[in-house]
C-alpha cells in the first residue's frame, strides 16, 4: 500500500486541451471514442483498506482483478465487475452494475468518495469517506457512468461487502418467474429464451436448500455462463444470441446495439450538467453518456 500521488495526476491532466484517462481500454468504444484526446494514466494501487470499516481507498487506475484479490484476502469484495485488464476507474465511468447485483447491489451505490481533477485543472473531492453521507450534493452518483466527461477521477473510496460463504450456479429449461418464486434474493437470474440460469449465494446450508428447491424444478448444477460482450436496454424482445438479466433491465447481446433514445428534456438537462462542469468540452470530447443504452 502506498500513497496515491494526486498532485502528479492533476499536473498530467493540466488545465487546457482535450484530455481523457485511459483505463484498461476494455470498453474504450462505449459512448464514442477518444477523438484523439491526449490520454493520461490514472494512479494505481491500494492506498488504504480497513476490513473492519468495510471501505477501501484505491487509485482509479488499479485493475478490478488486483483490487478483488486484495479484498478477497480479507473475505470482502466490491460491487464492480469488469473483464480482464479493466480498471476500477474505467468500470465506474462506464457504470455497468455487476452481474450479481441482486446481492452486491448497484454500481451507483459503491462509490463513496472520488478525488477528481475538473475541467479547469483544479482538484476537487466529491462525496465523503463514510458509508453513509448526505452532506451536500451527491456528486459520486453523478460521476458513475459519466464516461469521464464531468471530471477525471484519480482516487476513490469504495464500499466493500462480505464475500458470500457459498454459492451455486444452476440452469434448466424453467421459466424465470418459477425460479424467482422459490428463491430469496438470488444474485442473478439469466434467461436466454430457453434456459434460465441462476446464481444463489449466502450461508452454505441456505445455498444447499435453494439448490434442492431448484432441482425439484428440474434444474441442474451448471457453471458461470459466458455472456455475449455487448449490452442493451431490455425492451421486451430477446435479440438473437441475447441473454436477459431478469429484473435488471439489461440484455446481453453479441453485437453493438443502436444508440439509446433519450427524451429531449432529459438530454438537454444532461447537456446543461456537462456544460456546467466542462464549458469547453475538453474532458473526453468524443464521448457522450447519452449514447449508452443501459
Amino acid at each position, binding site marked *: 500500500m502506498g500513497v496515491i500521488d494526486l498532485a502528479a495526476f492533476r499536473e498530467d491532466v493540466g488545465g487546457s486541451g482535450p484530455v481523457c484517462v485511459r483505463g484498461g481500454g476494455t470498453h474504450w468504444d462505449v459512448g464514442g471514442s477518444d477523438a484523439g484526446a491526449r490520454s493520461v494514466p490514472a494512479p494505481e494501487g491500494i492506498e488504504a483498506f480497513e*476490513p*473492519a*470499516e*468495510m471501505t477501501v481507498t484505491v487509485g482509479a487506475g488499479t485493475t478490478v482483478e488486483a483490487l478483488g484479490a486484495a479484498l478477497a484476502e480479507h473475505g*470482502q469484495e466490491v460491487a464492480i465487475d469488469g473483464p480482464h485488464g479493466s480498471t476500477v476507474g474505467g468500470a465506474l465511468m462506464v*457504470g455497468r452494475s455487476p452481474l450479481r447485483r441482486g446481492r452486491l*447491489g*448497484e454500481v*451507483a*451505490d459503491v462509490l463513496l468518495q472520488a478525488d*477528481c481533477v*475538473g475541467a479547469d485543472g*483544479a482538484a*476537487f473531492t466529491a462525496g*465523503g*469517506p*463514510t*458509508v*453513509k*453521507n*448526505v*452532506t*451536500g*450534493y*451527491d*456528486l459520486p*452518483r*453523478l460521476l458513475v*457512468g459519466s464516461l469521464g466527461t464531468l*471530471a477525471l477521477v484519480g482516487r476513490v473510496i469504495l464500499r466493500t*461487502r*462480505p*464475500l458470500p460463504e457459498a454459492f451455486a450456479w444452476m440452469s434448466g429449461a424453467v421459466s424465470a*418467474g418459477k425460479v424467482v418464486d422459490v428463491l*430469496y*434474493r438470488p444474485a442473478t437470474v439469466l434467461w436466454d429464451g430457453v434456459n434460465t440460469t441462476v446464481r444463489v449465494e449466502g*450461508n452454505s446450508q*441456505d445455498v444447499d*436448500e*435453494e439448490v434442492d428447491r431448484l432441482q425439484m424444478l428440474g434444474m441442474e448444477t451448471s457453471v458461470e455462463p459466458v455472456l455475449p460482450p455487448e449490452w442493451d*436496454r*431490455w425492451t421486451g424482445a430477446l435479440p438473437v444470441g441475447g441473454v436477459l438479466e431478469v*429484473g*435488471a*433491465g439489461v440484455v446481453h447481446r453479441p453485437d453493438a446495439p443502436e444508440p*439509446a*433514445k*433519450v427524451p429531449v428534456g*432529459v438530454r438537454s*438537462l*444532461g447537456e*446543461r*450538467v456537462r456544460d*456546467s*462542469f466542462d464549458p469547453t468540452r475538453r474532458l473526453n470530447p468524443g464521448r457522450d*453518456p*447519452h*449514447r*449508452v443504452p*443501459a
Partner: protein
Amino acid sequence: MPSSFVSGLVGRIRGHDALERELVAVVGRGRVESGAGALKLYSRDGSVTRGGHPGIVCFPETTAEVSACVSTAARHGRPFVPRGAGTGLAGGAVPCEEPVMVVTTRMDDIYEVDVERRLAWVGPGVVNLDLSRHLEGTGLHFAPDPSSQQACTIGGNVASNSGGPHCLLYGVTSAHVLAVEVVLPDGEVVVIGAEEGRAPGYDLRGAFVGGEGTLGIATKICVRLTEDPPEVATLLLDFESVQGAADTVSAVIAAGIVPAALEIMDQRVVEAVEPFVEAGYPMDAAAVLIVELDGMTAGVAAAVARIQDIGTANGARTVRVAATEDERARIWKGRKSAFGAIAVIKPDYYLNDTVIPRTRLAEVLTRVYEVVEERDLIVMNVFHAGDGNLHPLIVFDAREPGVMERVLEAGEEIVRISVEAGGVLSGEHGIGLEKKRFMPLQFSPADLEAQDRLRRAFDVNGLANPAKVLPSGASCGHVTSLGRAPEGTWV
C-alpha cells in the same frame, strides 16, 4: 415618506395580489393560502430554525399544477420551496426570500404497485408508513424507514435521501428510487431514471435524490420494493458501558456480518423510553444494542450465534433473542419512540446528525459525552451505530439563561470532532440551513464549486429553495438558527 418608497410598496403589494390571483387560477381557490395562520404554520419545519417567511402557500394536486405554480413564481421573479410533511430536521423546508411554498401532501396517490417487477409509482405526498401498510400481504416492502415514518412523505424522503435503522443492509433512499418525475425549476417536466436498470445518460436520478428541494420538485416517484425476508431475528444486548456496545458494533462489522440494523441507545434514553413502552430494556444498563438479522433460516441462525459470542466477548450482560413477533415489535417501538419520550427529561432538544468511521465509535462517543458534560448539559445517544451515524441529542430548558450558547458550542464541537475523526457533517438529515455554515469544515472551495455546478445546471435562475445547502450566495433573511436566537424564542 418618499413617494418612490410608497409606489414601490404599492407595486409590491399589487404584484403579490397578481401572483396570488394567478396561483388561484392555477390550482383553484381554497388551495392557495396567504393568511397569517398559514404563513406562520409554514414558516418552519421539524428543525430548530425559526423566523422563515413564506410568501404564499399552494397545495397542488397534479404535476401540471406543480409546474404551473413553479412557472408562475418564476414569472414574478419569486423563488419556490417544495415541502412535504415538514418533518425535516435541518431547515430544508424553511422558507427564505418569501417564496411560493409548493406543498405536495395532497399528491398522495399510490398509482401502481407492480408485484412481479417489484416497483411502485407513488405521489410525493404518500406517507412513508402508508406505503408499507399498503404493501402488506404482497411480500414486499419499501426499505427506508426513518423514525418519522408515520408522518414523513416519500417526496420528502427523496429530497433528503432519508435513512432509517434498516438502511445499514439495504441502503438509504437513493438505493430505492428507480425513477422520478420532476418539475424542474423552470417548470419543465422530465422523468429521470428508469423502472429497470440504468437510464441512458448521466445518473440525474442519483444526483436529484438528496437535493433538498434545490433541484426541482418530485411529482411522481418510482420506488424499488424489497422482498420481505423469510426469517427475521431481533436481538437485544445490554452492557455496563457504552464502549462495550460500541466495540460490539465494530467487531460485528469486522467479522463480515452486515445485519439489517444495529442500533445503540444509552442509559438516559432507556430510562426515558422503558416506562412508556415496556420493551424490556434493562433500566440499569449503560447501553442497549438492538441487532436485527434477516435472510434465510440457516444464515440468520449462524449470525445470531456469532453475535451472541461477539457481544459476550465485549461485555454484554445478557443477549436476548425476541421469541415472538410481539416482543420484536416492542423492542423496535422503544427505539422508534425514543425522541417522543425525551420530553420527560427537558422541554427542548437539539438533535445532531454526523457520521464517523464505525471503527472509531467508542472513542468518539467518549469525546461526545465529555464535550457536552463539560458545558453542564445533558446528552442522550440513540443512533444508527452500524453505519457510524451518530445522533447525539442535547436536551435542555431554553428558559435557562445562557443555555443556548452552550448548546450551540457543544453541537459545533461534535461536528468538529466527527469531521476530525474522518467523518462527515450529516448521515441522513441533510444540510438545509442548519449545517450550511459547517460545509467548509468538510469541503474546500473547489469541492463546493463542483457541487454548485450541479445545482446551477438544474436551477439556472437560482429560484429553487434558495439559501440552502451551499454556504455561498444568499443568506436567509430573518431566519435565526440555533445559538443566534434571542433567549425565549424556542418553542
